């Protein structure tokens, strides 16, 4: 038995470890439990290693087009294992960094699979049993499995790939992001099921590396959460790159043979076709990890595979909290981190507000990049707003031309009545690094006036953000 913790976080993903560090900063005696890796999926099998892969693909792409910039590069090729090795190295380095941060903040790391036995009642703390796990070796200094007690227990167990019955990933021919991230060799052909951020990023990566790629999306639009205009532009670009896209289409059957998978795909017109590929990536979303945590026994309220909270992390069971993917969509690392901080600050009694989920940006790191925040044009209209829409194309921006990236668009949506920035949507080079400018503006509740009065540096891509706002009010300069 150990001393009672003030806060025990289950799951050391981006949500969990940030929560633990913030808790420690607030003076809580804190521990974080994980069964596999510090930094979670994000850092080990998600956000970070895919960015490393995509960077390799991007540089490869530039080398193939070196002559566009007056350079020459002959016999450009790649080594798949070296690309994967670099990606793993990036994850490994950051994984070690998380361990260091936790240690520095005096957060105990407990290794194993946790189950909540009870929550705190009166002076009696909650109890968590941690079972030994063979999944991965414990980091140095971690506490072993056993029984632990804590006043507040925060679930940050994340999510895992959704599996469609009959098309269950087998790790060999049907991949999830785990396998797709560490290919032994580049597949010659690939079928991607699902066109959300994960599916599109892998499609973009493998297409750049030379694979024949087909993307199948159930809904009529790829990147279904994005603005229709942006998604339409993305589709055109992908198709120009040679990616085959089937929307309104459903994979009904998958047959495996020695060297290929053959998928039967039913279109919206009811006609079926068969497409064979070396590999199939199943990227049809993620589901919360709510199993084996003891939730049923405690009577924790869940909804469609995620835990229901009050927006400040509190579940219906006092003393038990949930943040991040397991607490519901949008399942994004930055949302998890923010929720975790709100949760522990609420426990501390600080002045907190539930997160405004309408102001969480989303980024997709395909080529071209896509970034957005707030309402799409269609959603804004659906909610009854009279909108003013601004657009500015990359072709009108000096920096974009100089970069050799003349394709793209920055779109802004304002409430005509109040000038509130309702949403911003971008496609093109580096837009994932631009979007936060609009996020800050939205968080500060800027109107078009403040955005117009803001000075944007020249020459930068960010000037397009200014021009897009100006365009919404008929004041654009460069088109």
């Amino acid at each position, binding site marked *: 038995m150990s001393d009672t913790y003030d806060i025990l976080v289950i799951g050391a993903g981006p949500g969990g470890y940030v929560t633990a560090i913030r808790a420690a900063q607030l003076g809580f005696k804190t521990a974080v439990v994980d069964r596999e890796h510090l930094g979670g999926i994000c850092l080990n099998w998600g956000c970070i290693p895919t960015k490393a892969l995509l960077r390799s693909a991007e540089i490869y792409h530039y080398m193939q087009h070196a002559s566009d910039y007056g350079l020459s590069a002959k016999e450009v090729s790649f080594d798949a294992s070296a690309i994967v090795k670099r990606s793993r190295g990036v994850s490994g380095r950051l994984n070690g960094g998380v361990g260091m941060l936790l240690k520095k903040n005096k957060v105990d790391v407990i290794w194993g699979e946790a189950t909540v036995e009870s929550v705190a009642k009166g002076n009696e703390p909650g109890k968590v049993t941690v079972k030994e796990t063979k999944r991965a070796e414990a980091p140095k200094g971690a506490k072993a499995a056993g029984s632990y007690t804590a006043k507040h227990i925060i679930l940050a167990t994340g999510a895992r790939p959704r599996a469609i019955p009959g098309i269950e990933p087998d790790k060999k021919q049907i991949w999830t992001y785990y396998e797709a991230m560490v290919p032994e060799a580049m597949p010659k052909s690939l079928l991607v099921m699902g066109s959300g951020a994960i599916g599109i990023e892998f499609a973009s990566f493998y297409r750049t590396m030379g694979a024949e790629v087909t993307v199948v999306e159930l809904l009529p639009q790829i990147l279904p959460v994005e603005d229709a205009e942006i998604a339409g532009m993305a589709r055109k670009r992908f198709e120009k790159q040679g990616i085959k896209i089937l929307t309104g289409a459903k994979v009904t059957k998958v047959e495996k043979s020695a060297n290929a998978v053959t998928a039967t795909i039913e279109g919206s017109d009811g006609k079926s076709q068969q497409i064979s590929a070396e590999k199939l990536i199943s990227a049809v979303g993620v589901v919360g990890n709510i199993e084996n945590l003891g939730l049923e026994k405690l009577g924790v309220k869940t909804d469609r595979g995620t835990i229901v909270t009050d927006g400040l992390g509190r579940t219906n069971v006092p003393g038990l909290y949930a943040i991040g993917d397991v607490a519901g969509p949008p399942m994004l690392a930055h949302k998890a981190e923010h929720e975790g901080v709100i949760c522990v600050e609420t426990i501390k009694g*600080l002045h907190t*507000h539930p997160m405004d989920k309408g102001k969480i940006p989303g980024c997709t790191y395909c080529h071209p990049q896509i970034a957005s925040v707030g309402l799409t044009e269609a959603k804004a209209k659906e909610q009854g707003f009279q909108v003013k829409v601004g657009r500015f194309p990359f072709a009108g921006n000096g920096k974009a031309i100089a970069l050799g990236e003349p394709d793209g668009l920055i779109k802004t949506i304002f409430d005509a009545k*109040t000038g509130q920035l309702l949403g911003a949507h971008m496609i093109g080079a580096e837009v994932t690094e631009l979007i936060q400018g609009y996020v800050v503006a939205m968080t500060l509740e*800027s*109107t078009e006036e*403040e955005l117009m009065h803001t000075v944007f540096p020249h020459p930068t891509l960010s000037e397009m953000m200014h021009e897009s706002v100006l365009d919404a009010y008929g004041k654009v300069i460069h088109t």
Partner: protein
Amino acid sequence: MPINVLMPALSPTMEKGNLAKWLKKEGDAIKSGDVLAEIETDKATMEVEAIDEGVLAKIVVPEGTADVPVNDLIAIIAGEGEDVSAAAAGGGAAPKAEAKPAAEAPKSDAGQNTTPGDGHMSYARVNEAPDGAKPAAGGGQAAAPASSGGRVFASPLARRIAKQEGVDLAAVQGSGPHGRIIARDVQEAKASGATKAAPAPAQQPAEAPKAAAPAPKAAAAGGAPAGLSLDQVRGFYQKDAYEEVPLDGMRKTIAKRLTEAMQVAPHFYLTVDCELDALMKLRETLNGSAGKDRDGKPLFKLSVNDFVIKAMGLALTHVPAANAVWAEDRILRFKHAEVGVAVAIDGGLFTPVIRRADEKTLSAISNEMKDFAARARAKKLKPEEYQGGVTSVSNLGMFGIKHFTAVINPPQSSILAVGAGEKRVVVKDGQPTVAQVMTCTLSCDHRVLDGALGAELVSAFKGLIENPMGMLV
């Protein structure tokens, strides 16, 4: 270093005032104690006294300027041996910025500015104002610096929505970082309807009479809730049928406070007849017995109204539950009676307050009233002399008014409207007889006084008036 003369605060709650008159010209030599200017506020006119020596280098705010915020630069004095023109040129710019923070906290330096005892004010100099006015650093997270006329922190979107929806930001509690008002706060305030500043211009009904009148401004100049707009009112009359009289501070205050009183305080009225014969007799006796001062003038001359004031003061202490005022979520109950007395003056009225009217002798009340009345007519009352009070006495008997009702003067909870004392036929023991009778009507704030309580107060008052010896012991 040139000395910056700032708009003084005449009372702790004063936020702005009118610069009525400059008594010194640019270039005049200034001695400490010289009267520089006259400042007019709600009700009082005060003189601003110099506390420095030098030359009046520049008048920044010309006389006749209305609504000058407290601590705004109004003039510059060049110190001894200083170049007057340089002082005039340089003094304004920098100190203006420096003076700003002071304006945010008029409360903290009010004490500095007020010279108690007489009707003169000294002004805050810029080199001392910021110190006294330093805003309290840090402070609570949620404490919104909204009220008190300071700067209101609100997001751009919150400001715009507030403007569009006619929500008064000063009345909105901010929930954002450091108490900043965010859009949601404004929407919630609007939904709760608590902070409607005034009908939003756009929503004004279109059927305005005759003149296609633009809707009234949010709050009319006087701060009174908007009724008909200026153009609407003009639309009713021939253009040459009237002359337009600008509002002075007192008129604006009367309009605002009494409109508010009628809208906020639920009034009801209790009327009683009081026989004055005993009182008149006693008054005659007392006045006849008054000693003389060195000049041979009597030391006091009691009026009927002095008895009324004293009777109200005593009645309040006899009925302690009525000696109280409404204060938002509670009632403030007083030990001693504070009785305001309406004094009509040219262009308006003042209501100076007799403190401890229950304890003071009739002669003390009488002399205090004479002093108040004289200074009220000269507009030289100090704010603390006409603020407060639990009740007031308004006597229109000298105009032959028999009976009337009065509007309660906030924050007071009642007001006694006193009519003329006149000979009437009354029935006593079944027989008609002639008595001197005065009709009094008490307006009561029902939030504080219920009917029975009000009646108790009125009958205590009547008892004292009709048996006036009770007021002497």
